[in-house]
């Protein structure tokens, strides 16, 4: 398997992988806290536990490459270069948010970063990613699109249509599955007769690999192989990352539930992607515990600043903002 290749990864990339994961984790914990205090309205779908997937996938991409996302999209946007201030402002429904407060957590996006949108409809981002990949091939610009989606997405028709089309048209795309074992609140084995989503790849005519989604280096290495394949004109690939969602599908708690056991949650948390990676980095003398702490503190300070920015930002004005941005006016 490609991920077993002993790729020499530079210190810079290792730090980048770490940094993006910590950025996601701390933002999400802060967002969860704010949501629990009703300082963030609406639904929130936290990415905590799955950081290695977004970080490993996006570090393997170029800045200009595109990604599509899911309900659980904060992590993808952060990993693609999203900034805390407009993210936090968007969560709070402020005019200074990435979407001027019109999208919120579930639709957060920044097309300038190649982020084609979080999406409130399961699986619906995948056909859109295929469209972006088509455009890359059409323009012969050497760019790659990475579609992030969950195990649950692979049961919806749009996913099947998109995967088949991407393979039939031989497009530069990577299908990045976050298999967190639950489709919302229903265990994977209750709604799928197969264990590994990657098995589906063969049906479309693309390679499918399984990686430990709690191991950011494993994700990164698999993503590098798939991205290189796409960029070289060799077509789509699928990567299934076995990962886990610490919180519920939506909301800010995840324990004491009937759909999964607390023991199971604890077991996965023992293999926390950030803790695992920091232990590896310390052992390899790449990053000391002290350095890691400093990185956390620096990011936390940035988040605190973003919260302040968001709370002090103006709300959108119904008189002015309600009807703008429905249509693009002729230039």
């Amino acid at each position, binding site marked *: 398997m490609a991920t077993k290749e002993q790729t020499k990864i530079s210190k810079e990339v290792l730090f980048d992988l770490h940094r993006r994961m910590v950025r996601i984790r701390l933002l999400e914990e802060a967002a969860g806290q704010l949501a629990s205090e009703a300082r963030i309205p609406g639904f929130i779908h936290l990415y905590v536990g799955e950081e290695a997937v977004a970080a490993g996938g996006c570090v393997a991409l170029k800045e200009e490459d*595109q990604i*599509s996302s899911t309900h659980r999209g904060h992590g993808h946007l952060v990993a693609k270069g999203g900034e805390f201030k407009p993210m936090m402002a968007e969560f709070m429904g402020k005019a200074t*948010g*990435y*979407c*001027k*407060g*019109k*999208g919120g957590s579930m*639709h957060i*996006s*920044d*097309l*300038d970063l190649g982020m*084609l*949108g979080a*999406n*409130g*409809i399961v699986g*619906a981002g*995948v*056909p*859109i*990613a*295929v*469209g*972006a*990949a*088509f*455009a*890359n091939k*059409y*323009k012969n610009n050497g760019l790659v*699109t990475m579609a992030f989606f969950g195990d649950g997405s692979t049961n919806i*028709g*749009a996913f099947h*249509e*998109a995967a*088949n*089309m991407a393979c*039939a*048209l031989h497009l530069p795309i990577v299908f990045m599955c976050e298999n967190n074992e639950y489709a919302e609140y229903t265990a994977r084995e209750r709604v799928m007769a197969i264990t590994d989503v990657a098995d589906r790849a063969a049906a479309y005519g693309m390679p499918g690999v399984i990686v430990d989604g709690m191991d950011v280096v494993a994700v990164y290495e698999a993503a590098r192989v798939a991205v290189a394949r796409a960029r070289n004109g060799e077509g789509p690939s699928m990567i299934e990352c076995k990962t886990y969602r610490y919180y519920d599908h939506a909301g800010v708690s995840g324990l004491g539930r009937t759909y999964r056991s607390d023991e199971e949650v604890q077991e996965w948390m023992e293999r926390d992607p950030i803790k695992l990676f920091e232990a590896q980095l310390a052992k390899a003398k790449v990053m000391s515990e002290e350095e890691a702490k400093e990185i956390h503190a620096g990011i936390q300070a940035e988040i605190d600043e973003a919260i302040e920015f968001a709370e002090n930002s103006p709300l959108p004005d119904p008189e002015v903002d309600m009807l*703008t*941005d*429905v*249509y*693009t006016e*002729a*230039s």
Partner: protein
Amino acid sequence: MAVTEQEQRIIRYNDAFNETLAELLREDPDIFIAGEDVGRYGGVFQSFAGLNAEFGDERIVDTPIAEQAIIGLGIGAAAVGLRPIVDLMFMDFVMVSMDQIANQAAKMKYMFGGKAKLPLTITTTGGAGLGAAAQHSQSLEAWLIHVPGLKVVYPSNPYDLKGLLVSCVRDDNPTIFTLHKAMLGSKGHVPEGLYEIPLGEANVVREGTDATVVAIGKMVSEAQKAAEALSEEGIEVEIIDPRTLLPFDMDTVIQSAKKTNRIVIVHEAVKNGGIGAEISAQIQEQAFDYLDAPVTRVAAPFAPVPFSPALEQSYVPNAESIAKGVRDVLHRNT
């Protein structure tokens, strides 16, 4: 105005569609067409004939039968800078792809705070009359005009078809362009070269003083036949073809309502929840005091489109039922 050779050029509705696409493709390399059977075969109605041969597989793309992915292909490609034309072979397939149309394409710009620009055109064929039965004959414009973010266009003749199609493709919003499949062979004057008819501008097809008929798509030609018959009875009908159903040129309809004081709305879709209901509501909101009779709708009965020609013919409104509607608003029916 002198009638030049150019003005006399008469071509088929379907050929006007094909010619317009070819001219647009030659003009703008960012335009491509994707859909079921549009490539090598040229489309089930041959609307895309010859395009694959001229522009190649890269630009005239045969897709799987996968309507959600076809629309998604267009959305993603438009979002990153191309100007896609994607085809839904039959308008009935709108339902199969409704999530991508209504939840994705239509809302992307708004949800993203204005950042997205989606120059996407969805072409399709609507309407009954070919014995194609309940799943290949519908007019689903009412489903689409309910969705903020879309533009919906329905040309009634070859000249408008060309001008409106050019405007749709050049527009930076998702537009749905509906051909009427029973009009594909109809003929009319179409100039060579590209020209635009602005979206959201109705056409007063016939001026009249006694009643206004607002007719959509193929119903425009039926309304014209009705108007000729009614003229012999001394009734002069004004006919308005909205051409664009979203945005809708209500001003032109209201002006006419204030002039004739009597309105008949004609569409092929079922009456219940059809676009006629919306037009009627807006007329009473804006011109209630000018009306001398209730607004009347001539539309299909509340049943799926039937197969048998015996049923289908009386399902779809025609000149006769439109004339009856006009006599109703004039209280001339005995």
